[in-house]
């Protein structure tokens, strides 16, 4: 999707364009009026755009948005150069018009700023088919139901490979879209326009997203003088603040207030009104910076990283091997825990009693204290329950070594999670930190005990249905609120095969910025690798402690709703006790009553946090987006990844207080309205009978909405997923970043046998082709792998060569009838090596969770349906039609007049 960099130097440092128009190239001919179309951006296509008919003169569209003087010379060549050919690369979310404007004279003012798409003049209109192809994607669909046979299924739009991981180039001095990505890169100027954009107007925010090493966020230290901020709206200094009066004042981009520049920050301006030192100061030239926070941003010294493990040691946990794996993993991570030498660590285990461990550094063996009374738990000793890791290292290791053996013969089936939580919060109350809960059974003792629910099918489709997806006991919400206040972030690891009420447990994570990991029916041999990876990632990844996040928007725009895992501390302050590089949020914006008159809208995300190394920092992401008057530009600049990111969070949130049916309907209606609005813009001009049209940027919207409706949190009804699976997947979806979400919704399907055999014959295939997700491509003679970012499913056809299976799985297990507990390990042969190399390559793209490989054989009842066919989003299933039928259905709904 992103253009090659050589084509297209990122215009990083042209934040403040000159106010006067630079000289324009006088040579280009005046544009013929009928060619005022701007081409659709080719950003979503991996293939080059269709060749332009030779008759067509160069594009002559005026800038689609923003006043020309704002962006003149953004990256234009010197005027003496001959005009370069119009680049095909998209710019700023894909608008070629940016490049063209440098070669074209300005349009007459009467045309307005936003005449990106002008109606063709009568008599000179190009053939309609050509126009449509140029303007938007269209798909010919017979309007009669059931006669869709003339449409090729292959012609339906599908995401190109690797499109999930690529982002558009950031425009101007904006922060990289991986941190902040708007659903459309064009903010509507008025309420009425916003109302006609039926999709959410919002953004996906991923404040700590992992960046490649060459794009690390620069650190800026203002020393003791304090960070330069607007004195009214408290916006941090950013590349869009305009300096005036020889650099003595700056005008805040967000609230437009004229501020004094502090004495030691004054710098002379150059002739374009830019500061001369702008290039040397990252905060004036880049969209993302880390400020070192001075004294005023601390209420206490920066906290050390604290990890507390609350481990269920009841019989289920011991038998399934969770305890052993958890202890081993924690031990192997001790060296890699961030924040040495201040890191603190503590343990508490529980079944029907609570077990405290004194890890005093002077001891050689940890002391265990058992508290049998769980009604009103107290701490048996005042300190040494949470200790400094570097001092008590040996004791901690001794504990982790002995922990599995202590409970090896534990027959206790009870689980007193509530009391254990209460005890833990009082241990952690002084500092806060990260709390990891390993829960293997339904909490059955003391406060917060939960009962079995969601087993009756008749609850579904009634008003009682959404209650299954929220916490049953108010204890969990109160506990989450308490944790948030004490700066404790909770991560829940749930394991049980039976019902554990993930909905209730997950509440703890939901309000404390945590995550829920669910391993139904944990089996050490198969799932151990995944748990090891996930847990060590959780312990070692970049984490921001005691954080708060705030979003500031430019005049006339306000945030309306936030989605994700956090607690709102005040109306716009998100409290995040522990947030890490795998957590994303989304926000929706609303327009205030005033008309937006400026040309750009600004957004600033600020995350105040303590890094693991004990520094208080503020990560600031700033973005500017043009304000437009034209609906068509909004659609053109839409960003499918962010739209799906916000829509999915909306749908999951809706499912918490409404029936699944209504949650799916909610998204569906939004999409249909948007497409209808879009159709109505063009229907008058073109004959569109039997065609469904959609903007190039949103061509994948129907597919993703279909996939979302079939995704685990929203799929079907009672029969289609257990309540735990649904809840866990829902919690996960709320925190997912855009790439992982898109991957989950539309997994990659690869034909494995051909790829591997081809490779062994010496054919250098670097990436296997992706197949459409339909069961039709599953050839019984082949082996296929789906990768949804969470796991790999290896599907083996019935008549697949047995040698191939034996080579991949190993000769012993190849014929075993039960593939459920077969670990996929590398065998000593070429095929298997290539297979694992492929898996490793795919895993590398997706570092946030370990993709474990499970094997399914064709015709394996139940499992095949659950693992493979549920991923086949283009097929009929879960009460939803196939992709083709879905398009026909949407088309019909779009045609309907309301």
């Amino acid at each position, binding site marked *: 999707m992103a253009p090659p960099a050589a084509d297209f130097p990122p215009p990083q440092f042209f934040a403040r364009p000159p106010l006067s128009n630079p000289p324009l190239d006088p040579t280009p001919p005046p544009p013929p009026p009928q060619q005022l179309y701007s081409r659709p951006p080719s950003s979503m296509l991996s293939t080059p755009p269709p060749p332009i008919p030779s008759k067509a003169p160069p594009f002559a569209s005026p800038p689609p948005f923003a006043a020309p003087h704002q962006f003149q010379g953004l990256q234009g060549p010197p005027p003496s150069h001959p005009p370069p050919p119009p680049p095909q690369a998209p710019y700023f979310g894909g608008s070629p018009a940016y490049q063209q404007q440098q070669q074209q004279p300005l349009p007459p003012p009467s045309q307005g700023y936003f005449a990106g798409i002008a109606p063709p003049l009568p008599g000179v209109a190009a053939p309609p088919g050509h126009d449509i192809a140029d303007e938007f994607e269209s798909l010919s669909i017979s309007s009669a139901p059931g006669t869709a046979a003339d449409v090729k299924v292959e012609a339906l739009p599908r995401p190109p490979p690797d499109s999930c991981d690529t982002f558009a180039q950031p425009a101007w001095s904006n922060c990289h879209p991986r941190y902040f990505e708007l659903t459309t890169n064009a903010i509507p100027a008025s309420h009425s326009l916003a109302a006609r954009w039926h999709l959410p107007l919002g953004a996906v925010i991923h404040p700590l997203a992992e960046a490649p090493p060459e794009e690390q966020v620069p650190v800026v*230290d203002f*020393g*003791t*003088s*304090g*960070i*330069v*901020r607007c*004195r009214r709206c408290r916006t941090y200094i950013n590349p869009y603040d305009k300096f005036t009066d020889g650099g003595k004042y700056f005008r805040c981009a967000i609230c437009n207030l004229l*501020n*004094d520049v*502090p004495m030691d920050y004054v710098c002379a301006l150059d002739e374009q009104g830019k500061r001369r030192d702008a290039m040397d100061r990252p905060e004036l030239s880049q969209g993302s910076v880390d400020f*070192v926070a*001075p*004294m*005023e941003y*601390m*209420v*206490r*010294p*920066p*906290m*050390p990283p604290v990890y507390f493990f609350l481990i269920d040691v009841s019989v289920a946990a011991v038998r399934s091997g969770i305890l052993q794996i958890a202890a081993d993993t924690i031990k192997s991570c001790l060296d890699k825990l961030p924040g040495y*030498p*201040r890191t603190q660590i503590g343990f508490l285990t529980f079944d029907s009693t609570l077990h405290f461990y004194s890890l005093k550094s002077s001891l050689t063996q940890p002391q265990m204290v058992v508290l049998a009374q769980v009604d009103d738990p107290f701490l048996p000793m005042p300190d040494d329950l949470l200790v*400094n890791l*570097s*001092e008590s290292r040996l004791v901690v290791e001794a504990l982790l070594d002995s922990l599995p053996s202590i409970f090896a013969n534990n027959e206790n089936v009870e689980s007193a999670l509530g009391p254990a939580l209460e005890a833990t919060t009082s241990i952690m109350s*002084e*500092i806060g930190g990260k709390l990891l809960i390993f829960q293997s059974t339904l909490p059955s003792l003391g406060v917060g005990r939960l009962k079995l629910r969601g087993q009756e099918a008749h609850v579904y489709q009634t008003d009682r249905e959404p209650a299954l997806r929220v916490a049953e006991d108010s204890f969990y919400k109160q506990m989450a609120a308490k944790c948030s206040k004490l700066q404790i972030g909770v991560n829940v690891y749930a394991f049980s095969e039976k019902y554990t009420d993930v909905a209730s447990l997950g509440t703890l994570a939901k309000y404390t910025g945590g995550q829920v990991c669910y391993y139904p029916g944990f089996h050490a041999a198969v799932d151990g690798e995944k748990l090891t990876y996930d847990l060590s990632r959780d312990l070692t990844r970049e984490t921001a402690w005691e954080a708060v996040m705030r979003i500031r928007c430019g005049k006339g725009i306000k945030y309306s709703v936030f989605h994700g895992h956090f607690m709102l501390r005040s109306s716009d302050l998100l409290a995040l006790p522990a947030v890490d590089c795998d957590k994303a949020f989304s926000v929706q914006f609303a327009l205030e009553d005033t008309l937006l008159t400026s040309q750009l809208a600004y957004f600033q995300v600020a995350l105040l946090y303590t890094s693991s190394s*004990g*520094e*208080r920092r503020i990560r600031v992401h700033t973005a500017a987006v043009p304000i437009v008057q034209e609906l068509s530009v909004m659609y053109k600049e839409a960003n499918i990844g962010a739209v799906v990111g916000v829509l999915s969070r909306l749908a999951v949130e809706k499912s918490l207080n409404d029936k699944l049916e209504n949650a799916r309907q909610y998204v569906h209606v939004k999409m249909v309205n948007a497409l209808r609005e879009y159709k109505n813009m063009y229907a008058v001009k073109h004959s569109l009978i039997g065609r469904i049209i959609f903007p190039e940027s949103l061509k994948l919207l129907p597919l993703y909405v279909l996939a979302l409706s079939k995704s685990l949190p929203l799929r079907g009804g009672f029969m289609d997923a257990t309540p735990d699976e649904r809840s866990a997947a829902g919690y996960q979806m709320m925190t997912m970043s855009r790439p992982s979400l898109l991957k989950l919704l539309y997994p990659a399907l690869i034909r494995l046998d051909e790829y591997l055999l081809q490779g062994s014959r010496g054919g250098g295939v670097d990436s296997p082709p992706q197949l459409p997700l339909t069961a039709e491509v599953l050839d019984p003679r082949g082996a296929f792998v789906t990768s949804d970012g969470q796991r790999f499913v290896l599907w083996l056809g019935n008549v697949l060569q047995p040698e191939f299976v034996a080579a991949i799985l190993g000769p012993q297990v190849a014929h075993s009838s039960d593939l459920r507990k077969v670990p996929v390990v590398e065998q000593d042969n070429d095929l298997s090596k290539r297979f694992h190399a492929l898996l490793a390559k795919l895993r590398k793209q997706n570092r946030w969770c370990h993709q474990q490989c499970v094997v399914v054989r064709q015709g394996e009842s139940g499992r095949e349906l659950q693992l493979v066919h549920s991923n086949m989003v283009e097929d009929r299933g879960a009460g939803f039609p196939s992709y083709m039928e879905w398009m026909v259905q949407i088309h019909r709904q779009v045609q309907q007049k309301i």
Partner: protein
Amino acid sequence: MVKLTVIARITDGLPLAEGMDTGLEEKELDFYKQQAKSLFKRLSHGQNQPSRMSVETGPYFFHYLIEGRVCYLTLCDRSYPKKLAFQYLEELQREFERLNHSQIETVARPYAFVKFDIFIQKTRKLYLDTRTQRNLSRLNDELYEVQQIMTRNIQEVLGVGDKLDRKLSFFSSSSSNSSSSIVSSLGFLTLFSSFAEVSQLSTRLTAESRIFSDKARDLNRQALIRKWAPVVIVLSVVLIFLFMRRSIWG
């Protein structure tokens, strides 16, 4: 018992390290931290401060020690032996200087030596119980003399009264034209305005108590007169009578 330990640079009051957990309630902690902060402010402005001092505040004592432009401050219970508190601070000072001597003057980030909290924590634990053998022997250490260390009240040290009022006006004027530190100065404003209120209150109280004491003296006199007046009158009548009788009859 040691409640709070802060190490700060004298030149600008920048905190360098702090002990993590304390035995104080959150609200109380904030109050005393704020006091410690203003104490550092005063120390950085003042000249010729004594290098060791104990400052009384509420039920606690601040003990501080200034060495090499760094102030080591701790908040202890009233009953905690002064001798131990200063030995504790000295121990911190030796270690802190040994570790960070070269960087103390150059750091700009607050809590730059936050790693030192491990040592603070460890040392604090040693000093928590005054009755351990180790601490008892320290207490009996004759060579260590703390008697001459001055003890003052926090209000005195922070200079309530006129000084504060002046400061208040200074702050309000400076905050109106400085744009960068509204929040911080607001914090100080509330702090100082509360001090100013206290000082006003105390001035009024002193004036009123003076009036009361005058009145009391007056009342005392009146009571005295009322008590003894009849006796004096009777006596004088008798004396006059006796005198008259003698002069008439005699």
